[in-house]
């Protein structure tokens, strides 16, 4: 079992209880594996997609084409589905603050940024209309900041519909602290609470009992071996 395996299972857990909605995993291999693992184990009614525009009837390995297609989701339909809300999206973020406001647009002042990034993409609509989780492969004070430079994704203080989870390479977090601020839910095996605090650039709520992120079951490890035989997930989460 590697740290990446723990992260994939933690991402899968973010989709627990979602039922028959689209698990839109966008922020990298670990999120895609999380959605597919959830569907193949404890959340069988989830819809998953091929990362382009097919809703897959089966659950293919990373990079493989589906054998069965159960639906069509071109970009225009995807954008309507955002408004419909029957969708839980797992995004990436270049910056995130303690209320879950996130930035993928630019670093520095917006009129003339120090570093232009992607642009807001679909983050404003996603966070306003759908349950949203985040996957952050490198938990650091550069990402977990006091104030994001531009609000692409809404925090709990700006009308986010529902921020479910933030999964990082160190821990699982949510927004269950007073005032909807970020709370440490569990640390991954081998990670201390102090390490998480040192990697977080704002005051993080730490409850009396911080859990330990659960390890994958034997069945989950078997499923993961089939979904990602080349262990692409470990390139995203080294060590």
């Amino acid at each position, binding site marked *: 079992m590697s740290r990446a395996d723990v992260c994939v299972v933690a991402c899968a857990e973010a989709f627990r209880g979602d039922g028959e909605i689209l698990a839109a995993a966008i922020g990298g291999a670990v999120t895609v594996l999380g959605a597919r693992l959830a569907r193949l184990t404890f959340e069988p009614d989830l819809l998953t997609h091929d990362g382009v525009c097919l809703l897959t009837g089966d659950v293919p390995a990373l990079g493989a084409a589906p054998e069965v297609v159960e639906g069509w989701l071109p970009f225009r339909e995807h954008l309507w589905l955002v408004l419909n809300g029957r969708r839980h999206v797992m995004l990436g973020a270049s910056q995130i603050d303690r209320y879950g406001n996130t930035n993928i647009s630019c670093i520095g002042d917006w009129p*003339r940024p120090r570093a232009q990034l992607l*642009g*807001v993409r*679909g983050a404003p609509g996603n966070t306003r*209309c759908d349950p949203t989780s985040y996957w952050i492969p490198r938990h650091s004070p550069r990402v977990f900041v006091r104030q994001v430079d531009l609000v692409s*994704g809404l925090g709990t203080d700006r009308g986010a519909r529902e921020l479910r989870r933030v999964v990082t390479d160190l821990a699982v977090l949510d927004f269950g602290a007073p005032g909807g601020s970020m709370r440490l839910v569990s640390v991954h095996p081998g990670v201390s609470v102090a390490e998480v605090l040192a990697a977080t650039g704002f005051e993080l709520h730490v409850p009396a009992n911080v859990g330990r992120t659960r390890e994958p079951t034997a069945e989950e490890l078997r499923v993961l071996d089939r979904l990602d035989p080349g262990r692409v997930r470990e390139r995203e989460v080294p060590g």
Partner: protein
Amino acid sequence: MTKVMSAAEVACSVESGMTVGIGGWGSRRKPMALVRALLRTPVRDLTIVSYGGPDVGMLCAARKVRRVVAPFVTLDSIPLEPHFRRARQAGEIEFVEYDEGMFMFGLLAGAHGLPFLPTRAGLGSDVLRVNPGLRTVRSPYADGEELVAVPALTMDVALVHVNRADVRGNAQYLGPDPYFDDLYAKAARRCYVSCERVVDTADLLKEGPVQSLLISRSMVAGVVAAPGGAGFTSCEPDYGRDEERQRRYAEIPWESWAPEELREDPHEQG
């Protein structure tokens, strides 16, 4: 009744200061032959409306852009577009930054003659802060919900690339995603379609179902035969993205890249 013309003729019809919509998405089925033709003209000060990719990057690099209207600019397999980044970081261009769904609603409004369309996308985010001209609208019904009133995205010229078209401008996509090319065609005063192959009208249904006829000739001012005309972006099922060529574009300085790439396209007529 043929509307067939050359890419150079399309480009020469674009005047400085115009608003140009560009179809496709990111680095997917972009009308790159038409963009390259535009790069060879002296046109300047364009407003580009685009789900941005290398189209936006090249026009920025060639200093032809005053304003970009977009929710993102990306090369997909290379997340950040180097020339757009440089232009933004140098403060050379204005940026109208929208959410992806807001942008679609702007196109839908533009395509259908509406002044705006309401949506929740954008509310609460800094999109409203960095676009101080954006207004909200309140539902007149019992819910009374406040929504963003996305203004119509209209354009002087739209450029799109499809798999097949006939000489009158009926245009067909054969890949998995139409993107938003039909909306660009409807939202522009003049739309030009480049295609992999010009075919007889009677042959259009030989390669795709009737639902693949994305754009009606009533929306099209000109048709350009441009095999490979989306390259290096993808144009499925005719070809995928040329990742090697895209990587060179992203890595080589514009001054060395442009002279070689902007020679006349060998396939172009006229």
